[in-house]
């Protein structure tokens, strides 16, 4: 029997339980329980793979495995953090928050398991819907504004993605193979697909799912949503939702490449990637709000992923590894930024300084997270970004490679200036008086994520390398 239903049903059952538990204090502890169980299930699914049936709607192919791993690890760490966070915010009702977090786990797993593009679309849209109330958690005017933008921009993007999905199905129907949205059918008939429909479909899917990923110029919702959402939600959005949307884009890429349209899609992807990186670097310089800075960093890294995909075969390993690195490192950054936010009651560099003194653990982790995400050795993102750069030069795209380096450098300087202001100096008198102190629950999950990022950078665990190699082979069409 397939494991897929387990992944979908048990978080949903936990969500129902969360709705039934009356105590605001005990309810959040369901999250770590669900997170641990999900991680254990993921472990089993990865270690004992089921044979991939081409007719199954729910099956875990090599690409889905990578995304499921990222989502599961990130949620595991976030769930323990969330339990501590919600305890400190006990005045705020957390029923809807817990329910939505658990449904997040369920829908994100569905995205990873889907082998049917229509079902995948339903899951990504579901992901948008369950995350909207999460952004709204603080019920301030700003959070309403952020949720509104997130819903409107996100819904429009997702509607375009549906149109793109339809176009893709029609390209198969036009080729005389009957309209199908099964990934395996589309891959099998790829060379025969009607080209004009396929081109239009790819553009719509890139714009649609790109909106969910937060590629420029469809990124406008991102700084607002990440800035106003609680940090644990920011971590799940920037590491989980974006990875799920990227998986949808990977499917479109896979089908287009199998159809022999490499040149067409790569040009689009390279352009979008560089545009996102350039936009992010522009807004990152002089950024005063630390969470908005992280949002632009997310725009940048989505750009890197799309750019890596656009470089094609030589950079695929680096790109898929970067999905893992970006997801985990964003967890480190958002969760530690959350602790700093709680210690200072502010997220602006005008009030926040001396975080290393005020909250030594969180301040240090935030700083190390910054070093990791900007691609400094010995952390994981260094390896993946280096592999992407290497891919650019190996495929003879010198200009792209050079631009990539320059933009990374600008981001490093821009982000570094803001981060140094936050961690260095002396904390203000007001900040010393707030009640927040680093605890095990608010520190250990971040430390665990950072250790993972470090491990990937230093030794690149063999099982992970094998997993990503499988995915690369799958993308290149050698099952």
């Amino acid at each position, binding site marked *: 029997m397939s494991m897929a239903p387990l992944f979908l049903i048990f978080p949903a059952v936990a969500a129902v339980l969360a709705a039934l538990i009356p105590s605001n204090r005990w309810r959040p502890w369901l999250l770590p329980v669900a997170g641990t169980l999900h991680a254990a299930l993921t472990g089993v699914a990865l270690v004992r793979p089921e044979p991939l049936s081409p007719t199954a709607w729910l099956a875990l192919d090599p690409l889905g495995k990578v995304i499921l791993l990222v989502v599961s690890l990130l949620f595991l760490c976030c769930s323990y953090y969330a339990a501590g966070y919600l305890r400190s915010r006990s005045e705020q009702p957390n029923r809807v928050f817990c329910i939505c977090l658990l449904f997040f786990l369920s829908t994100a797993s569905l995205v990873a398991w889907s082998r*049917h593009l*229509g*079902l995948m*679309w*339903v899951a990504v*849209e*579901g992901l*948008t*819907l369950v995350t*909207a*109330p999460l952004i*709204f958690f603080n*019920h301030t*005017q*700003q959070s*309403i*504004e*952020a*949720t*509104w*933008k997130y*819903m*409107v921009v996100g*819904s*429009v993007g997702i*509607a375009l993605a*549906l*149109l793109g999905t*339809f*176009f893709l*199905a*029609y390209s*198969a*129907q*036009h080729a005389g193979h*009957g*309209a*199908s*949205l099964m990934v395996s059918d589309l891959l099998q008939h790829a060379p025969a697909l*009607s080209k*004009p*429909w396929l081109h*239009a479909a790819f553009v719509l899917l890139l714009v649609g799912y790109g909106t969910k990923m937060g590629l420029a110029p469809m990124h406008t919702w991102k*700084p*607002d949503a990440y*800035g*106003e959402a609680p940090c644990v939600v920011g971590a799940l959005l920037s590491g989980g939702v974006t990875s799920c949307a990227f998986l949808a884009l990977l499917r479109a890429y896979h089908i287009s490449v199998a159809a022999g349209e490499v040149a067409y899609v790569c040009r689009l992807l390279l352009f979008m990637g560089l545009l996102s990186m350039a936009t992010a670097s522009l*807004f990152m310089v002089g950024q005063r709000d630390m969470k908005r800075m992280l949002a632009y960093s997310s725009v940048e890294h989505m750009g890197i992923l799309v750019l890596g995909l656009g470089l094609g075969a030589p950079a695929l390993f680096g790109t898929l590894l970067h999905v893992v690195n970006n997801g985990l490192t964003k967890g480190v950054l958002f969760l530690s930024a959350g602790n700093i936010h709680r210690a200072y009651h502010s997220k602006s560099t005008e009030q926040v300084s001396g975080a290393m003194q005020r909250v030594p653990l969180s301040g240090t982790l935030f700083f190390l997270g910054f070093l990791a995400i900007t691609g400094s050795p010995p952390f994981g993102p260094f390896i993946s970004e280096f592999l992407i750069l290497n891919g650019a030069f190996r495929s003879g795209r010198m200009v792209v490679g050079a631009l990539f380096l320059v933009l990374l450098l600008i981001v490093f300087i821009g982000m570094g200036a803001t981060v140094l202001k936050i961690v260095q100096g002396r904390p203000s008198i007001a900040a010393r008086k707030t009640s927040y102190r680093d605890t095990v629950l608010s520190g250990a999950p971040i430390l665990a994520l950072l250790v993972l990022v470090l491990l990937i950078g230093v030794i690149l665990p063999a099982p992970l390398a094998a997993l990503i190699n499988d995915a690369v082979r799958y993308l290149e069409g050698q099952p």
Partner: protein
Amino acid sequence: MSNFFNPILVVVLLLNLFVLGTSRITSVIRGVAIQGALIGMLPLLLPGHVSRGAFLMAVLTIVLKGVVIPVMMNRALRDVEIKREVEPVIGFQASVILGALGAVWALLFAGRLPLTEAHADSLVVPASLATVLTGFILLITRFKALTQVMGYLVLENGVFIFGMLLVQAMPLVVEMGALLDLFVAVFVICIIVNHINRAFSTLDTRQLASLKE
């Protein structure tokens, strides 16, 4: 395609122009409701598609798009006590002209996409593209939160029209899922609209401008 298909799509195209040209928000809601109910009927007109599942889907679509969502919208409108859209970025007449130009472009562009023989003389593709464009115009140029939601619904209607070419590719579960997602999205948006109104005492999205660089 049946004989009734193209006439219904022409009515859908006219409704697009009506929605673009009116300043009364209740008229916009009514126009979008009629449009939603009309396209909900389309699947039943497809030859060989009359099954219990298809009938159920059509009834659900018509009830949701034609009755439930408009009632929800009208209630939200009554709570916030506004009647008219303020003068949009592009005037009402100008947006009608823009919508008409969009429809012409859609007709020309659809001519470049190859269709299978069975669909060769149908208006599905141009009607779908023109409706999507109308949704975009509403979303971009209007200021009231509720009109923007109607823009999203029109956009969604456009995508739905295209789905008519693929009824056999979309299994019932996926269709149901898409419809459910649409409904929940509108539901969530209504809740946010309500909160916007309570927190800002207005539904003018120009007031939602505290978050920017």
